[in-house]
Protein backbone atom coordinates (compact mmCIF):
# COMPACT_ATOMS: atom_id res chain seq x y z
CA UNK A 1 0.00 0.00 0.00
CA UNK A 2 1.38 3.40 -0.97
CA UNK A 3 1.49 6.45 1.21
CA UNK A 4 -0.50 8.37 -1.40
CA UNK A 5 -3.34 5.89 -1.24
CA UNK A 6 -3.55 6.17 2.51
CA UNK A 7 -3.60 9.96 2.28
CA UNK A 8 -6.41 9.79 -0.25
CA UNK A 9 -8.43 7.53 2.02
CA UNK A 10 -7.99 9.84 4.98
CA UNK A 11 -9.27 12.71 2.90
CA UNK A 12 -12.33 10.61 1.98
CA UNK A 13 -13.06 10.00 5.65
CA UNK A 14 -12.50 13.69 6.37
CA UNK A 15 -15.12 14.58 3.75
CA UNK A 16 -17.56 12.12 5.33
CA UNK A 17 -16.82 13.18 8.89
CA UNK A 18 -19.49 15.89 9.41
CA UNK A 19 -22.29 13.61 8.28
CA UNK A 20 -21.08 10.56 10.15
CA UNK A 21 -20.67 12.41 13.44
CA UNK A 22 -24.10 14.01 13.09
CA UNK A 23 -25.72 10.71 12.18
CA UNK A 24 -24.29 8.96 15.19
CA UNK A 25 -25.28 11.82 17.48
CA UNK A 26 -28.80 12.63 16.29
CA UNK A 27 -29.96 9.52 14.43
CA UNK A 28 -28.33 6.20 15.29
CA UNK A 29 -27.74 6.62 19.03
CA UNK A 30 -31.23 8.08 19.58
CA UNK A 31 -32.71 5.30 17.45
CA UNK A 32 -30.98 2.67 19.58
CA UNK A 33 -32.22 4.46 22.70
CA UNK A 34 -35.79 4.42 21.38
CA UNK A 35 -35.64 0.64 21.08
CA UNK A 36 -34.04 0.33 24.54
CA UNK A 37 -36.60 2.67 26.16
CA UNK A 38 -39.52 0.79 24.62
CA UNK A 39 -38.69 -2.09 27.01
CA UNK A 40 -38.64 0.17 30.09
CA UNK A 41 -41.12 2.09 32.22
CA UNK A 42 -39.06 5.28 32.21
CA UNK A 43 -40.93 8.49 33.07
CA UNK A 44 -38.07 10.97 32.71
CA UNK A 45 -37.24 10.86 36.44
CA UNK A 46 -35.13 8.19 38.16
CA UNK A 47 -33.64 5.18 36.45
CA UNK A 48 -35.46 3.19 33.75
CA UNK A 49 -36.66 -0.27 34.87
CA UNK A 50 -36.65 -3.08 32.38
CA UNK A 51 -40.22 -4.36 31.98
CA UNK A 52 -39.92 -6.56 28.90
CA UNK A 53 -42.81 -6.32 26.47
CA UNK A 54 -45.18 -4.75 29.02
CA UNK A 55 -45.48 -1.44 27.09
CA UNK A 56 -46.52 -3.28 23.95
CA UNK A 57 -49.01 -5.44 25.88
CA UNK A 58 -50.47 -2.34 27.56
CA UNK A 59 -50.71 -0.57 24.26
CA UNK A 60 -52.69 -3.37 22.64
CA UNK A 61 -55.16 -3.19 25.53
CA UNK A 62 -55.74 0.56 25.41
CA UNK A 63 -58.85 1.37 23.37
CA UNK A 64 -57.37 4.78 22.58
CA UNK A 65 -54.40 3.09 20.88
CA UNK A 66 -56.75 1.13 18.64
CA UNK A 67 -58.71 4.30 17.98
CA UNK A 68 -55.49 6.02 16.88
CA UNK A 69 -54.42 2.99 14.87
CA UNK A 70 -57.73 2.75 13.03
CA UNK A 71 -57.85 6.47 12.38
CA UNK A 72 -54.35 6.35 10.92
CA UNK A 73 -55.28 3.47 8.62
CA UNK A 74 -58.57 5.11 7.60
CA UNK A 75 -56.74 8.35 6.90
CA UNK A 76 -54.43 6.44 4.52
CA UNK A 77 -57.43 4.67 2.95
CA UNK A 78 -59.09 8.02 2.23
CA UNK A 79 -55.93 9.81 1.16
CA UNK A 80 -53.85 7.43 -0.95
CA UNK A 81 -56.26 6.37 -3.74
CA UNK A 82 -57.61 9.89 -4.22
CA UNK A 83 -54.09 11.36 -4.29
CA UNK A 84 -53.04 8.87 -6.96
CA UNK A 85 -56.17 9.14 -9.14
CA UNK A 86 -56.36 12.93 -9.12
CA UNK A 87 -52.59 13.23 -9.51
CA UNK A 88 -52.70 11.04 -12.60
CA UNK A 89 -55.71 12.77 -14.14
CA UNK A 90 -54.14 16.18 -13.61
CA UNK A 91 -50.84 15.04 -15.09
CA UNK A 92 -52.69 13.88 -18.22
CA UNK A 93 -54.53 17.20 -18.35
CA UNK A 94 -51.43 19.39 -18.13
CA UNK A 95 -49.24 17.18 -20.33
CA UNK A 96 -49.87 19.15 -23.53
CA UNK A 97 -48.47 22.20 -25.26
CA UNK A 98 -51.11 24.86 -24.93
CA UNK A 99 -50.51 28.56 -24.26
CA UNK A 100 -50.27 29.26 -20.53
CA UNK A 101 -49.81 25.61 -19.55
CA UNK A 102 -46.57 26.29 -17.71
CA UNK A 103 -48.37 28.87 -15.57
CA UNK A 104 -51.14 26.45 -14.60
CA UNK A 105 -48.64 23.70 -13.80
CA UNK A 106 -46.75 26.02 -11.47
CA UNK A 107 -49.94 27.14 -9.80
CA UNK A 108 -50.98 23.56 -9.03
CA UNK A 109 -47.60 22.92 -7.49
CA UNK A 110 -48.01 25.72 -4.95
CA UNK A 111 -49.60 23.67 -2.12
CA UNK A 112 -46.60 21.34 -2.07
CA UNK A 113 -44.14 24.10 -1.17
CA UNK A 114 -46.29 25.44 1.67
CA UNK A 115 -45.94 24.06 5.20
CA UNK A 116 -48.74 21.76 6.38
CA UNK A 117 -49.27 24.00 9.41
CA UNK A 118 -49.93 27.14 7.38
CA UNK A 119 -52.18 25.23 5.04
CA UNK A 120 -54.02 23.74 8.02
CA UNK A 121 -54.65 27.17 9.54
CA UNK A 122 -56.19 28.35 6.26
CA UNK A 123 -58.34 25.24 5.81
CA UNK A 124 -59.46 25.32 9.45
CA UNK A 125 -61.24 28.52 8.53
CA UNK A 126 -62.42 27.36 5.07
CA UNK A 127 -64.02 24.36 6.79
CA UNK A 128 -65.60 26.27 9.72
CA UNK A 129 -69.21 25.14 9.94
CA UNK A 130 -71.09 28.44 10.33
CA UNK A 131 -68.64 31.03 9.10
CA UNK A 132 -66.23 29.17 6.79
CA UNK A 133 -65.85 29.99 3.12
CA UNK A 134 -66.84 26.55 1.83
CA UNK A 135 -70.16 26.40 3.66
CA UNK A 136 -70.92 30.01 2.75
CA UNK A 137 -70.38 29.14 -0.92
CA UNK A 138 -72.48 25.98 -0.53
CA UNK A 139 -75.21 28.07 1.07
CA UNK A 140 -75.22 30.40 -1.96
CA UNK A 141 -75.58 27.33 -4.17
CA UNK A 142 -78.51 26.22 -2.03
CA UNK A 143 -76.73 23.30 -0.37
CA UNK A 144 -77.06 22.71 3.37
CA UNK A 145 -74.00 23.35 5.56
CA UNK A 146 -71.70 20.36 6.15
CA UNK A 147 -70.15 19.96 9.64
CA UNK A 148 -66.67 19.46 8.14
CA UNK A 149 -64.62 19.60 11.32
CA UNK A 150 -67.28 19.59 14.02
CA UNK A 151 -68.76 16.15 13.36
CA UNK A 152 -66.85 12.95 14.24
CA UNK A 153 -68.22 11.44 11.03
CA UNK A 154 -66.70 14.09 8.80
CA UNK A 155 -63.58 15.36 10.57
CA UNK A 156 -61.07 12.69 9.49
CA UNK A 157 -62.31 12.83 5.92
CA UNK A 158 -62.01 16.62 5.93
CA UNK A 159 -58.38 16.34 7.01
CA UNK A 160 -57.89 13.81 4.22
CA UNK A 161 -59.23 16.35 1.70
CA UNK A 162 -56.52 18.80 2.74
CA UNK A 163 -53.87 16.07 2.53
CA UNK A 164 -55.08 15.06 -0.94
CA UNK A 165 -54.99 18.71 -2.00
CA UNK A 166 -51.32 18.83 -0.99
CA UNK A 167 -50.32 15.35 -2.24
CA UNK A 168 -51.92 15.78 -5.65
CA UNK A 169 -49.70 18.76 -6.16
CA UNK A 170 -46.63 16.53 -5.82
CA UNK A 171 -48.02 13.41 -7.50
CA UNK A 172 -49.00 15.40 -10.58
CA UNK A 173 -45.33 16.17 -11.20
CA UNK A 174 -44.30 12.58 -10.56
CA UNK A 175 -46.78 11.32 -13.14
CA UNK A 176 -45.95 14.12 -15.55
CA UNK A 177 -42.35 12.92 -15.53
CA UNK A 178 -43.61 9.38 -16.17
CA UNK A 179 -45.85 10.52 -19.04
CA UNK A 180 -43.04 12.42 -20.70
CA UNK A 181 -40.99 9.23 -20.58
CA UNK A 182 -43.63 7.36 -22.59
CA UNK A 183 -43.13 9.38 -25.77
CA UNK A 184 -45.60 10.80 -28.26
CA UNK A 185 -45.13 8.16 -30.98
CA UNK A 186 -46.87 5.50 -28.90
CA UNK A 187 -49.96 7.69 -28.70
CA UNK A 188 -49.79 8.65 -32.35
CA UNK A 189 -49.71 4.99 -33.30
CA UNK A 190 -52.76 4.37 -31.12
CA UNK A 191 -54.63 7.31 -32.64
CA UNK A 192 -53.92 6.02 -36.15
CA UNK A 193 -55.29 2.66 -35.07
CA UNK A 194 -58.47 4.47 -34.08
CA UNK A 195 -58.14 4.58 -30.30
CA UNK A 196 -60.00 7.39 -28.56
CA UNK A 197 -58.43 9.51 -25.84
CA UNK A 198 -60.20 7.57 -23.09
CA UNK A 199 -59.18 4.23 -24.60
CA UNK A 200 -55.51 5.14 -24.85
CA UNK A 201 -55.66 6.41 -21.26
CA UNK A 202 -57.07 3.14 -19.91
CA UNK A 203 -55.18 0.69 -22.12
CA UNK A 204 -51.85 2.49 -22.49
CA UNK A 205 -51.21 5.27 -20.00
CA UNK A 206 -52.38 3.38 -16.92
CA UNK A 207 -50.47 0.12 -17.61
CA UNK A 208 -47.31 1.97 -18.65
CA UNK A 209 -47.40 4.14 -15.53
CA UNK A 210 -48.18 1.29 -13.17
CA UNK A 211 -44.66 1.15 -11.65
CA UNK A 212 -44.73 4.91 -11.08
CA UNK A 213 -48.18 4.62 -9.52
CA UNK A 214 -46.96 1.95 -7.10
CA UNK A 215 -44.02 4.06 -5.96
CA UNK A 216 -46.20 7.16 -5.62
CA UNK A 217 -48.73 5.14 -3.63
CA UNK A 218 -46.07 3.93 -1.20
CA UNK A 219 -44.66 7.43 -0.74
CA UNK A 220 -48.16 8.78 -0.07
CA UNK A 221 -48.89 5.96 2.39
CA UNK A 222 -45.67 6.67 4.31
CA UNK A 223 -46.70 10.32 4.60
CA UNK A 224 -50.24 9.42 5.63
CA UNK A 225 -49.05 7.16 8.44
CA UNK A 226 -47.17 10.12 9.91
CA UNK A 227 -50.05 12.59 9.88
CA UNK A 228 -49.96 14.88 12.91
CA UNK A 229 -49.80 18.55 11.94
CA UNK A 230 -53.24 18.58 10.31
CA UNK A 231 -54.99 17.06 13.32
CA UNK A 232 -53.04 19.13 15.83
CA UNK A 233 -53.89 22.43 14.16
CA UNK A 234 -57.37 21.81 12.77
CA UNK A 235 -59.13 19.61 15.32
CA UNK A 236 -56.75 18.91 18.26
CA UNK A 237 -57.46 15.23 17.64
CA UNK A 238 -61.21 15.67 18.11
CA UNK A 239 -64.15 15.69 17.97
CA UNK A 240 -64.44 12.57 20.13
CA UNK A 241 -60.90 11.46 19.16
CA UNK A 242 -62.05 11.07 15.55
CA UNK A 243 -58.80 12.63 14.24
CA UNK A 244 -56.51 11.20 16.91
CA UNK A 245 -53.68 9.40 15.07
CA UNK A 246 -50.66 7.29 16.03
CA UNK A 247 -48.18 10.16 15.94
CA UNK A 248 -50.57 12.19 18.05
CA UNK A 249 -50.66 9.30 20.54
CA UNK A 250 -46.84 9.23 20.57
CA UNK A 251 -46.73 12.99 21.09
CA UNK A 252 -49.19 12.88 23.99
CA UNK A 253 -47.48 10.04 25.83
CA UNK A 254 -43.96 11.33 25.20
CA UNK A 255 -44.29 15.05 25.56
CA UNK A 256 -47.40 15.63 27.66
CA UNK A 257 -47.62 12.65 30.04
CA UNK A 258 -43.83 12.10 30.03
CA UNK A 259 -44.32 8.33 29.65
CA UNK A 260 -41.08 7.93 27.68
CA UNK A 261 -41.14 4.12 27.77
CA UNK A 262 -44.66 3.81 26.43
CA UNK A 263 -44.12 6.54 23.82
CA UNK A 264 -40.98 4.75 22.64
CA UNK A 265 -42.97 1.55 22.20
CA UNK A 266 -45.39 3.42 19.91
CA UNK A 267 -42.39 4.85 18.08
CA UNK A 268 -41.13 1.31 17.47
CA UNK A 269 -44.53 0.24 16.08
CA UNK A 270 -44.64 3.27 13.78
CA UNK A 271 -41.06 2.69 12.74
CA UNK A 272 -41.78 -0.90 11.75
CA UNK A 273 -44.82 0.15 9.72
CA UNK A 274 -42.94 2.86 7.85
CA UNK A 275 -39.60 1.13 7.50
CA UNK A 276 -41.15 -1.93 5.86
CA UNK A 277 -42.89 0.33 3.34
CA UNK A 278 -39.60 2.16 2.69
CA UNK A 279 -37.83 -1.09 1.97
CA UNK A 280 -40.61 -2.11 -0.40
CA UNK A 281 -40.22 1.23 -2.15
CA UNK A 282 -36.43 0.78 -2.53
CA UNK A 283 -36.90 -2.69 -3.98
CA UNK A 284 -39.49 -1.48 -6.48
CA UNK A 285 -37.37 1.50 -7.49
CA UNK A 286 -34.42 -0.77 -8.12
CA UNK A 287 -36.52 -3.14 -10.23
CA UNK A 288 -37.55 -0.36 -12.56
Amino acid at each position, binding site marked *: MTKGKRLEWSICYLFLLPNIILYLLVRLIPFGSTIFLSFTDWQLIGAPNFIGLQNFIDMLQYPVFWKAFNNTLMFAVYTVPLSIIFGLLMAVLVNRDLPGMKFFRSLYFLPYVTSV*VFVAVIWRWLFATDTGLINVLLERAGIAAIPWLSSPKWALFSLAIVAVWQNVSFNM*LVFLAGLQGIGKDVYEAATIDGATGVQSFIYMTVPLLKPTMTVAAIMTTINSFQVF*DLGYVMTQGGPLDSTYTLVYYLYDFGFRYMEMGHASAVAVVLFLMIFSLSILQRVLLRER
Partner: protein
Amino acid sequence: MTAVRYTKNILIYVCLIILAVIFAGPFIAMFLVAFQANPVTSARDIFNLNFTLSNFIRVFNESRLARWFLNSVITTGVVTVFGTFFSSLSAYVMAKKDFPGKELIFWLFLAVLMFPAHAWIIPMFIQMSRMGLVNTYWPFFLSGTSSAFGIFLLRQYIEQNVVSDILEAARIDGCGEFRTYFHIVLPTIIPGLITLAIFLFIQWWGQFMFALIMTTSGDMYTLPVGVALIRGVAQSNLRFVMATTAVAVLPSIVVFIFFQNYLMRGVVMQLD
Protein backbone atom coordinates in the same frame (compact mmCIF):
# COMPACT_ATOMS: atom_id res chain seq x y z
CA MET B 1 -62.01 18.53 -37.29
CA THR B 2 -60.85 22.00 -36.24
CA ALA B 3 -64.23 22.67 -34.63
CA VAL B 4 -63.84 19.52 -32.55
CA ARG B 5 -60.31 20.50 -31.57
CA TYR B 6 -61.54 23.99 -30.70
CA THR B 7 -64.28 22.69 -28.38
CA LYS B 8 -61.84 20.28 -26.82
CA ASN B 9 -59.37 23.04 -26.04
CA ILE B 10 -62.09 25.16 -24.48
CA LEU B 11 -63.05 22.22 -22.26
CA ILE B 12 -59.41 21.81 -21.25
CA TYR B 13 -59.14 25.47 -20.29
CA VAL B 14 -62.35 25.23 -18.27
CA CYS B 15 -60.84 22.33 -16.32
CA LEU B 16 -57.57 24.21 -15.88
CA ILE B 17 -59.36 27.25 -14.48
CA ILE B 18 -61.49 25.20 -12.08
CA LEU B 19 -58.32 23.52 -10.82
CA ALA B 20 -56.60 26.89 -10.52
CA VAL B 21 -59.41 28.03 -8.23
CA ILE B 22 -59.07 24.89 -6.11
CA PHE B 23 -55.29 25.14 -5.77
CA ALA B 24 -54.79 28.88 -5.50
CA GLY B 25 -58.18 29.74 -3.95
CA PRO B 26 -57.26 29.06 -0.32
CA PHE B 27 -54.21 31.32 -0.61
CA ILE B 28 -56.25 34.07 -2.24
CA ALA B 29 -58.87 33.76 0.50
CA MET B 30 -56.09 34.07 3.08
CA PHE B 31 -54.85 37.31 1.53
CA LEU B 32 -58.39 38.69 1.22
CA VAL B 33 -58.89 38.29 4.96
CA ALA B 34 -55.40 39.53 5.80
CA PHE B 35 -55.95 42.79 3.87
CA GLN B 36 -59.50 43.34 5.14
CA ALA B 37 -60.07 46.55 7.11
CA ASN B 38 -63.44 45.55 8.58
CA PRO B 39 -63.78 42.77 11.15
CA VAL B 40 -64.27 39.37 9.54
CA THR B 41 -66.62 37.19 11.53
CA SER B 42 -67.81 35.11 8.58
CA ALA B 43 -66.66 34.32 5.06
CA ARG B 44 -69.60 36.47 3.91
CA ASP B 45 -67.55 39.51 4.95
CA ILE B 46 -64.66 38.96 2.55
CA PHE B 47 -66.53 39.63 -0.65
CA ASN B 48 -66.47 43.40 -0.22
CA LEU B 49 -62.81 44.06 0.41
CA ASN B 50 -61.89 47.24 2.21
CA PHE B 51 -58.14 47.20 1.66
CA THR B 52 -55.74 47.93 4.51
CA LEU B 53 -52.24 47.03 5.65
CA SER B 54 -53.01 47.70 9.29
CA ASN B 55 -53.51 44.02 10.16
CA PHE B 56 -49.90 43.35 9.22
CA ILE B 57 -48.64 46.32 11.21
CA ARG B 58 -50.64 45.20 14.23
CA VAL B 59 -49.48 41.58 14.19
CA PHE B 60 -45.87 42.73 13.95
CA ASN B 61 -46.36 45.18 16.82
CA GLU B 62 -48.58 43.18 19.10
CA SER B 63 -47.32 39.60 18.70
CA ARG B 64 -43.90 38.01 18.60
CA LEU B 65 -44.18 37.46 14.84
CA ALA B 66 -40.96 39.35 14.08
CA ARG B 67 -39.08 37.19 16.57
CA TRP B 68 -40.58 33.97 15.14
CA PHE B 69 -39.66 35.11 11.67
CA LEU B 70 -36.09 35.73 12.78
CA ASN B 71 -35.92 32.29 14.43
CA SER B 72 -37.17 30.65 11.24
CA VAL B 73 -34.70 32.59 9.10
CA ILE B 74 -31.76 31.62 11.31
CA THR B 75 -32.66 27.94 11.70
CA THR B 76 -33.69 27.43 8.08
CA GLY B 77 -30.76 29.49 6.78
CA VAL B 78 -28.07 27.58 8.67
CA VAL B 79 -29.65 24.22 7.92
CA THR B 80 -29.97 25.03 4.22
CA VAL B 81 -26.40 26.26 3.77
CA PHE B 82 -24.58 23.71 5.91
CA GLY B 83 -26.90 20.83 5.04
CA THR B 84 -26.20 21.41 1.35
CA PHE B 85 -22.46 21.72 1.93
CA PHE B 86 -22.08 18.65 4.17
CA SER B 87 -24.24 16.57 1.82
CA SER B 88 -22.11 17.59 -1.15
CA LEU B 89 -18.93 16.51 0.66
CA SER B 90 -20.28 13.03 1.39
CA ALA B 91 -21.98 12.75 -1.98
CA TYR B 92 -18.76 13.52 -3.85
CA VAL B 93 -16.79 10.88 -1.98
CA MET B 94 -19.57 8.30 -2.33
CA ALA B 95 -19.90 8.96 -6.07
CA LYS B 96 -16.26 9.16 -7.13
CA LYS B 97 -13.98 7.51 -4.58
CA ASP B 98 -13.13 4.04 -3.40
CA PHE B 99 -11.97 3.38 0.14
CA PRO B 100 -12.31 0.69 2.81
CA GLY B 101 -15.68 0.75 4.56
CA LYS B 102 -17.51 2.48 1.72
CA GLU B 103 -20.15 -0.25 1.59
CA LEU B 104 -20.85 0.07 5.31
CA ILE B 105 -21.18 3.85 5.10
CA PHE B 106 -23.52 3.50 2.14
CA TRP B 107 -25.84 1.28 4.19
CA LEU B 108 -25.60 3.69 7.11
CA PHE B 109 -26.78 6.56 4.91
CA LEU B 110 -29.53 4.45 3.36
CA ALA B 111 -30.80 3.36 6.78
CA VAL B 112 -30.87 6.94 8.04
CA LEU B 113 -32.73 7.97 4.89
CA MET B 114 -35.51 5.53 5.75
CA PHE B 115 -35.80 6.42 9.46
CA PRO B 116 -38.96 8.35 10.14
CA ALA B 117 -38.52 11.22 12.61
CA HIS B 118 -40.44 9.35 15.30
CA ALA B 119 -37.75 6.70 15.47
CA TRP B 120 -35.30 9.13 17.10
CA ILE B 121 -37.26 12.16 18.33
CA ILE B 122 -37.87 11.03 21.95
CA PRO B 123 -34.25 10.26 22.92
CA MET B 124 -33.08 13.27 20.97
CA PHE B 125 -35.34 15.50 23.04
CA ILE B 126 -33.98 13.93 26.24
CA GLN B 127 -30.41 14.35 25.01
CA MET B 128 -31.01 17.98 24.10
CA SER B 129 -32.71 18.85 27.38
CA ARG B 130 -29.87 17.23 29.37
CA MET B 131 -27.37 19.30 27.43
CA GLY B 132 -29.48 22.39 28.11
CA LEU B 133 -30.06 22.90 24.39
CA VAL B 134 -33.87 22.97 24.37
CA ASN B 135 -34.97 26.49 23.45
CA THR B 136 -31.78 27.13 21.52
CA TYR B 137 -31.11 26.84 17.79
CA TRP B 138 -28.79 23.86 18.32
CA PRO B 139 -31.34 21.04 17.92
CA PHE B 140 -32.22 22.49 14.52
CA PHE B 141 -28.58 22.85 13.49
CA LEU B 142 -27.63 19.35 14.64
CA SER B 143 -30.64 17.59 13.18
CA GLY B 144 -31.03 19.58 9.98
CA THR B 145 -27.50 19.82 8.66
CA SER B 146 -27.30 16.07 8.10
CA SER B 147 -29.54 15.20 5.18
CA ALA B 148 -29.42 11.62 3.91
CA PHE B 149 -31.87 12.66 1.23
CA GLY B 150 -29.37 15.30 0.15
CA ILE B 151 -26.49 12.86 -0.01
CA PHE B 152 -28.38 10.54 -2.34
CA LEU B 153 -29.71 13.39 -4.47
CA LEU B 154 -26.26 14.91 -4.96
CA ARG B 155 -24.51 11.57 -5.35
CA GLN B 156 -26.77 10.88 -8.29
CA TYR B 157 -26.22 14.38 -9.67
CA ILE B 158 -22.43 14.03 -9.40
CA GLU B 159 -22.47 10.61 -11.07
CA GLN B 160 -24.39 12.09 -13.99
CA ASN B 161 -22.60 15.41 -14.34
CA VAL B 162 -19.02 15.21 -13.10
CA VAL B 163 -16.76 13.42 -15.56
CA SER B 164 -14.17 11.19 -13.88
CA ASP B 165 -11.56 11.98 -16.56
CA ILE B 166 -11.51 15.62 -15.52
CA LEU B 167 -10.90 14.64 -11.89
CA GLU B 168 -8.14 12.32 -13.04
CA ALA B 169 -6.57 15.03 -15.20
CA ALA B 170 -6.66 17.44 -12.27
CA ARG B 171 -4.95 14.86 -10.08
CA ILE B 172 -2.18 14.29 -12.63
CA ASP B 173 -1.64 18.04 -12.88
CA GLY B 174 -0.96 17.99 -9.15
CA CYS B 175 -4.26 19.49 -8.06
CA GLY B 176 -4.94 18.48 -4.41
CA GLU B 177 -8.19 16.88 -3.28
CA PHE B 178 -9.51 20.08 -1.70
CA ARG B 179 -8.72 22.22 -4.70
CA THR B 180 -10.30 19.62 -7.00
CA TYR B 181 -13.41 19.66 -4.87
CA PHE B 182 -13.74 23.44 -4.55
CA HIS B 183 -12.60 24.43 -8.04
CA ILE B 184 -13.90 21.59 -10.21
CA VAL B 185 -16.64 19.62 -8.47
CA LEU B 186 -18.58 22.39 -6.71
CA PRO B 187 -18.84 24.74 -9.73
CA THR B 188 -20.06 21.82 -11.87
CA ILE B 189 -22.86 20.80 -9.53
CA ILE B 190 -24.33 24.23 -8.72
CA PRO B 191 -27.78 23.35 -10.17
CA GLY B 192 -27.85 20.24 -7.99
CA LEU B 193 -26.84 22.29 -4.96
CA ILE B 194 -29.62 24.79 -5.61
CA THR B 195 -32.16 21.99 -5.94
CA LEU B 196 -31.14 20.47 -2.62
CA ALA B 197 -31.04 23.87 -0.92
CA ILE B 198 -34.64 24.51 -1.97
CA PHE B 199 -35.79 21.15 -0.66
CA LEU B 200 -34.06 21.80 2.66
CA PHE B 201 -35.58 25.27 2.80
CA ILE B 202 -39.10 23.94 2.22
CA GLN B 203 -38.63 21.11 4.72
CA TRP B 204 -37.24 23.28 7.52
CA TRP B 205 -39.32 26.39 6.95
CA GLY B 206 -42.35 24.18 7.54
CA GLN B 207 -40.87 21.85 10.17
CA PHE B 208 -43.51 21.52 12.87
CA MET B 209 -43.43 18.60 15.31
CA PHE B 210 -39.66 18.82 15.77
CA ALA B 211 -39.87 22.55 16.46
CA LEU B 212 -42.87 22.12 18.75
CA ILE B 213 -40.91 19.65 20.89
CA MET B 214 -37.57 21.49 20.92
CA THR B 215 -38.98 24.93 21.80
CA THR B 216 -41.10 25.67 24.85
CA SER B 217 -40.56 29.40 25.22
CA GLY B 218 -42.57 31.77 23.05
CA ASP B 219 -39.44 33.68 22.12
CA MET B 220 -37.86 30.62 20.56
CA TYR B 221 -40.83 29.44 18.48
CA THR B 222 -40.31 29.15 14.78
CA LEU B 223 -43.10 30.33 12.47
CA PRO B 224 -44.96 26.98 12.22
CA VAL B 225 -45.11 26.67 16.01
CA GLY B 226 -46.05 30.31 16.48
CA VAL B 227 -48.78 30.14 13.85
CA ALA B 228 -50.15 26.82 15.13
CA LEU B 229 -50.33 28.07 18.72
CA ILE B 230 -52.06 31.40 18.10
CA ARG B 231 -54.64 31.24 20.81
CA GLY B 232 -57.05 33.38 22.76
CA VAL B 233 -57.98 36.85 21.56
CA ALA B 234 -55.80 36.62 18.48
CA GLN B 235 -57.44 33.39 17.32
CA SER B 236 -60.88 34.90 17.51
CA ASN B 237 -59.65 37.68 15.28
CA LEU B 238 -59.41 35.99 11.92
CA ARG B 239 -57.73 38.97 10.25
CA PHE B 240 -54.72 38.67 12.56
CA VAL B 241 -54.50 34.90 12.14
CA MET B 242 -54.49 35.22 8.36
CA ALA B 243 -52.08 38.17 8.33
CA THR B 244 -49.66 36.14 10.46
CA THR B 245 -50.07 33.10 8.22
CA ALA B 246 -49.59 35.22 5.11
CA VAL B 247 -46.28 36.52 6.45
CA ALA B 248 -45.23 32.94 7.18
CA VAL B 249 -46.24 31.63 3.75
CA LEU B 250 -44.82 34.46 1.68
CA PRO B 251 -41.12 33.40 1.70
CA SER B 252 -42.10 29.93 0.41
CA ILE B 253 -44.08 31.51 -2.40
CA VAL B 254 -41.18 33.81 -3.32
CA VAL B 255 -38.65 30.95 -3.31
CA PHE B 256 -41.06 28.89 -5.36
CA ILE B 257 -41.55 31.60 -7.98
CA PHE B 258 -37.82 32.06 -8.48
CA PHE B 259 -36.66 28.46 -8.25
CA GLN B 260 -39.59 26.31 -9.39
CA ASN B 261 -37.64 24.75 -12.26
CA TYR B 262 -34.97 23.43 -9.89
CA LEU B 263 -37.66 22.15 -7.57
CA MET B 264 -39.55 20.32 -10.29
CA ARG B 265 -36.33 18.75 -11.54
CA GLY B 266 -35.60 17.61 -7.99
CA VAL B 267 -38.96 15.86 -7.72
CA VAL B 268 -38.17 13.91 -10.87
CA MET B 269 -34.66 13.04 -9.65
CA GLN B 270 -36.09 11.38 -6.54
CA LEU B 271 -37.66 8.72 -8.73
CA ASP B 272 -34.53 7.60 -10.54
